[in-house]
C-alpha cells in the first residue's frame, strides 16, 4: 500500500493459509509491512488464483524452508524484530512456543473454536463455522435444509475480529512492553455478526421458533421482491417508511386498500396479512427494473436496494462515481478490477499493491535483517531460502 495508513512501520509475519489471508490484507490496507512467509516454490494459497490475487496484494513474499536449520534460524531473527505473527492453525502448539521465544510478539491465531475450551481440537470450515453460530435455522426455505452464506464470510468476520484484536494488543503492548496471544474463534466471530437473528431474536419473542422464510420475512415488507430483471431488497421497518411505500403502491397500481389503518405501524402489525402485503408490493416492484426501483424508492424515503450479482457491481453508478475501483494490469493475470481499500485516512484510501512473485522480496528482506550478499547466496545454495 502507498498511502497514509496509521500502521506504517508495523512489521507483520503472515504465516496463514489461504483461508485466513484476509487478516494480513486488512493490516496491509492500514499501512503495515506484511511479509508472506512461504515454503520454497510458493505456498498452497497460490493455487486459488483469484483468492491469492485479492488477498496477497501489497504483501511481500519471502521463501524460507523453516524445516532446515539455517531457515529456522532466519525465521527466529525475523520474529525477533517483528511486531505481529499471523499463525496458520494446525501445527502443534505453535502459539505458545512462539510466545515463549519472542515475548514481544503479538501472535494472532484463528481457529474453529478457539485455543481453549472443550471443542478446541475440532476442525472446521466456513460452512461449519456458520453452522456453529446459531443463525442457520432461519436462513433458507422452509422445505429444505438450512442454507449457509457463501463467499467465505465467516472467515472474513474472523479476520476483521482478528485484525481488531491485533491492533488492541499492539496498543496494550505500548503500556506493558509485552506481546500476547490473540485467540479468535470462528464460532464467536459468526456470533459477532449474527446474534440479532439468533439469541437476541428468540429473547425478544421467546415462544417463536427460528424459522426459514425464504426470500422474505413473515413481517412484511422485509426481504426481496421480484422486479422485471431480478429482485430488490426492501426493509420498510419504520412506520413512515411503510406509509411512503403504501402511498406509492396506491398511486401506481390504483390499490386504495393498502392505505387502510389496519396495515399501518411496524412490520409485526402486518404479519397476519403477509401474503396480501407481499402480493401488493410485487404488483409494484414487477413494473420496474431493480436499479430503477431502487432509485425511485430512495427518492421517496424507502430503504431499498437492488439485489446485485457480483457481475452487476461493474455497472453500479456509486462505485463508478466514487473511484471505488482500481484497474490493475497484472503481468500474469491480465487486466483486473480491484475494489479499493475500504477505509480512508485523511482522505486517502491508498492503493492496492502488486501481487508478489514467489520469493520476490527474499533478498531485500534478508538484507534488512543484516544478512550479507554472499551469505544470501550460500543460504540459497543450501535450499534454506
Amino acid at each position, binding site marked *: 500500500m502507498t498511502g497514509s495508513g496509521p500502521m506504517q512501520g508495523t512489521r507483520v509475519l503472515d504465516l496463514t493459509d489461504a483461508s485466513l489471508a484476509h487478516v494480513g490484507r486488512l493490516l496491509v490496507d*492500514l499501512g503495515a509491512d506484511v511479509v508472506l512467509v512461504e515454503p520454497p516454490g510458493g505456498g498452497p494459497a497460490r493455487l*486459488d488464483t*483469484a483468492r491469492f490475487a485479492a488477498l496477497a496484494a501489497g504483501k511481500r513474499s519471502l521463501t524460507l524452508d523453516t524445516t532446515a536449520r539455517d531457515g529456522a534460524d532466519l525465521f527466529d531473527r525475523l520474529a525477533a524484530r517483528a511486531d505481529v505473527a499471523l499463525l496458520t*492453525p*494446525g501445527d502443534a*502448539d505453535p502459539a505458545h512456543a512462539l510466545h515463549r521465544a519472542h515475548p514481544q510478539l503479538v501472535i494472532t491465531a484463528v*481457529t474453529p473454536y*478457539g*485455543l*481453549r*475450551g472443550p471443542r478446541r*481440537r*475440532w*476442525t*472446521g*470450515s466456513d*460452512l*461449519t463455522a456458520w*453452522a456453529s*453460530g*446459531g*443463525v442457520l*435455522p*432461519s436462513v433458507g426455505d422452509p422445505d429444505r*435444509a438450512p442454507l*449457509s452464506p*457463501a*463467499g*467465505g464470510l465467516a472467515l472474513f*468476520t474472523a479476520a*476483521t475480529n482478528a485484525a481488531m484484536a491485533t491492533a*488492541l494488543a*499492539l*496498543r496494550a503492548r*505500548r*503500556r506493558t512492553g509485552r506481546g*500476547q496471544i490473540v*485467540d*479468535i*474463534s470462528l*464460532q464467536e466471530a459468526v456470533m459477532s*455478526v449474527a*446474534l440479532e437473528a439468533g439469541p437476541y431474536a428468540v429473547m425478544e419473542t*421467546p415462544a417463536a421458533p427460528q424459522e*426459514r422464510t425464504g426470500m422474505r420475512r413473515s413481517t412484511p415488507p422485509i426481504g426481496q421482491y421480484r422486479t422485471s430483471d431480478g429482485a430488490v*431488497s426492501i*426493509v420498510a421497518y419504520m412506520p413512515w417508511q411503510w406509509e411512503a411505500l403504501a402511498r406509492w403502491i396506491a398511486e401506481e397500481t390504483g390499490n386504495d386498500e393498502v392505505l387502510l389503518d389496519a396495515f399501518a405501524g411496524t412490520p409485526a402489525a402486518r404479519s397476519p396479512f403477509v401474503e396480501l402485503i407481499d402480493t401488493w408490493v410485487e404488483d409494484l416492484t414487477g413494473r420496474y427494473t431493480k436499479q430503477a426501483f431502487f432509485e425511485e424508492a430512495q427518492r421517496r*424515503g424507502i*430503504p431499498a436496494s437492488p439485489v446485485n450479482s457480483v457481475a*452487476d457491481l461493474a455497472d453500479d453508478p*456509486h462505485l463508478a462515481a466514487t473511484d*471505488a475501483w482500481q484497474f490493475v494490469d497484472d503481468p500474469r493475470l491480465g487486466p483486473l*478490477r*480491484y*475494489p*479499493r*481499500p*475500504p477505509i480512508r*485516512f485523511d*482522505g486517502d484510501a491508498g492503493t492496492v499493491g502488486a501481487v508478489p512473485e514467489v520469493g520476490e522480496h527474499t533478498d531485500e528482506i534478508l538484507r534488512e535483517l543484516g544478512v550479507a550478499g554472499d551469505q544470501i547466496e550460500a543460504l540459497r545454495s543450501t535450499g534454506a531460502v
Partner: protein
Amino acid sequence: MSNASDAPLGGPTGGAALPLEGIRVIELGYGIAAPVAARNLAQFGADVIRVESVRKPDSLRVSGAGWVPRDFDPAVRLDTMPALNFSCAGKRSVALEIDDDEGYAVLVRLVAGADVFVTNMSADVLPRLRLTYDDLRAHRPDLVYMSMPPFGDERSPYRTYRTWGQNLSAISGIDRMIGWPDRDPVQLGFAYPDYVSAQAGTMAVVAALDRRDDTGAGCNIELSQYEMALAAIAPNILGGQLHPDAAGAESNGNRADGVAPQGVYPCRGRDRWVAVTVADDTAWAGLVTVAGLTHLDEARFATLEARQSAHDHLDAELSAWSSGRTDWEAAEELQHAGVMASPVFDAWDLLGDHHLAAREAFRVLPHPRFGADLVFGQAAVMSETQPRFATAAPSIGEHTRPVLRDVGLGDDEIDALVGRGIVHEMGSPDVTLERPYAHWIHTLMRLPWPPASFDPAELFMARLAAPAERAGGGAGA
C-alpha cells in the same frame, strides 16, 4: 483448518491497564455499525458517551421488545430491546437534541473534552448538523474522527440514500451468492456489512490513536459500509473476472468450490441438522472409516473430481446416515474421524453450549431496568488483555446529569435545558421490569441471575398438585 493445542491460554498477568484506558469517545450512532464500534472501544477501556435523541431515537430503541405493550410508558419501552445489550453494553447515555443550537453547544463541549468521535449518519446529514471532521476538529484539533456511512463520499449519487444492513448485503452481491440453484435467492436476517464495518472501524480507530500518541496528529477516518462489504467478497469479485463462466459467483446451495461433499444433512429430531465439509482426500479417507459409511470406501470416490460429479449421490448417502443419529452424535463421530462437522446450532443451543460457557462468551451484567441482562462478551479474545464487562446497555439519558456536570454545566443550567426539552434524564427511573425468559436462561446457562419473582414451571407444577384450583382457574381452555 484444525487446532491441535492442548495447553490452556495464560490468564491476565496482573493489573495492567486496558489499552484504551483514559480515552473518551463520543458516539452519535444509529442501529449497529457505529454503536458496535463504540461498544468495542468501551469494552477495551474507553469511556464511551453515547449521545442519543429522544425525539428521534435509535432504531433499536424505537422497536422495543415484542412483549412490551405498545401503549406502555415510552421512556421504559425504549430500554427493552434485547439487542441493545449487543450494541451499547458498557456505555454511558446522554440524551441530547443536537439539531437545536443549545443542544449543539453542549455536544461541542463534549467533543472538546474527547479523544474520539464516531458516527454512522449518512454522508449528506453530517454537514447539515455541523458534524463534519472540519466542524468538530475546530473544537478538538487532535480528534480521531470516524464516519461510517452506508455510502461514503460527497461524489456518490447515493449519498442521500437510507439503508438497513440487509439492503447493503443485497446491493454488494452477498445475498445473491446464497440460495439453491433452482430457487429464488434468500435473504439474510442480519446486517452482515454493519458488523464487519464495526470491527474494522474499531481497528482503524485504535491504530489512529497509536499514531496520535506518536505524532500528536488526529485523523479523519472514512469507512463506507458498502465498500467494506466489497472487501469481504474481494476474492469473488476477482474470481468473477478471472473465471467469468465458473459457477463460483452464483448461489450453489451449501456446496463450495474445491471441497466435496459439503452439505447440511438431516438428523433425528425436529429441524435438527449436521453441517459437513470433506476438505480433501485425507478427510474423505477418514469419513469412510465411520460406522455406517464404510461402504463408500470405493476407488470411484477417491478424488475430489469424482466426489464432485457424484455429489448428489453422496448427499443422499450422508442424509441416510445422519438421519439415524442426533446432530451431536453425527458431528462427534465425523470429528473423531478427522472430518470437519458441526451440529447446526439454533439460538438456544448457543445459550446452553458448554464450550461457549467455558470461554465465558455470554455474561449477565447489571442493567438499569432489568436488574441484570444478557450480554455477548467479545469475539476479540486475548490471553492477557481481558475486556471490561461492567454494565449492560444504559437507559436512555441515564448519565445525562453526571456527564454534563463533568463538562462544566451547573445543575441550574441542566435543569433549564431539561425544561426546554433539549436534554433529557432517564424517564420513570423507579420502573423496573423482568424479562419473560429470565428463568429459561438461568436454567439453561447456569449463570447467576437475579432471583425470580415468579416461575412459570413452579406455577404449573403447583396447579397439577391442586386439581380443585385448576378446575376453577382453567375455564378458558
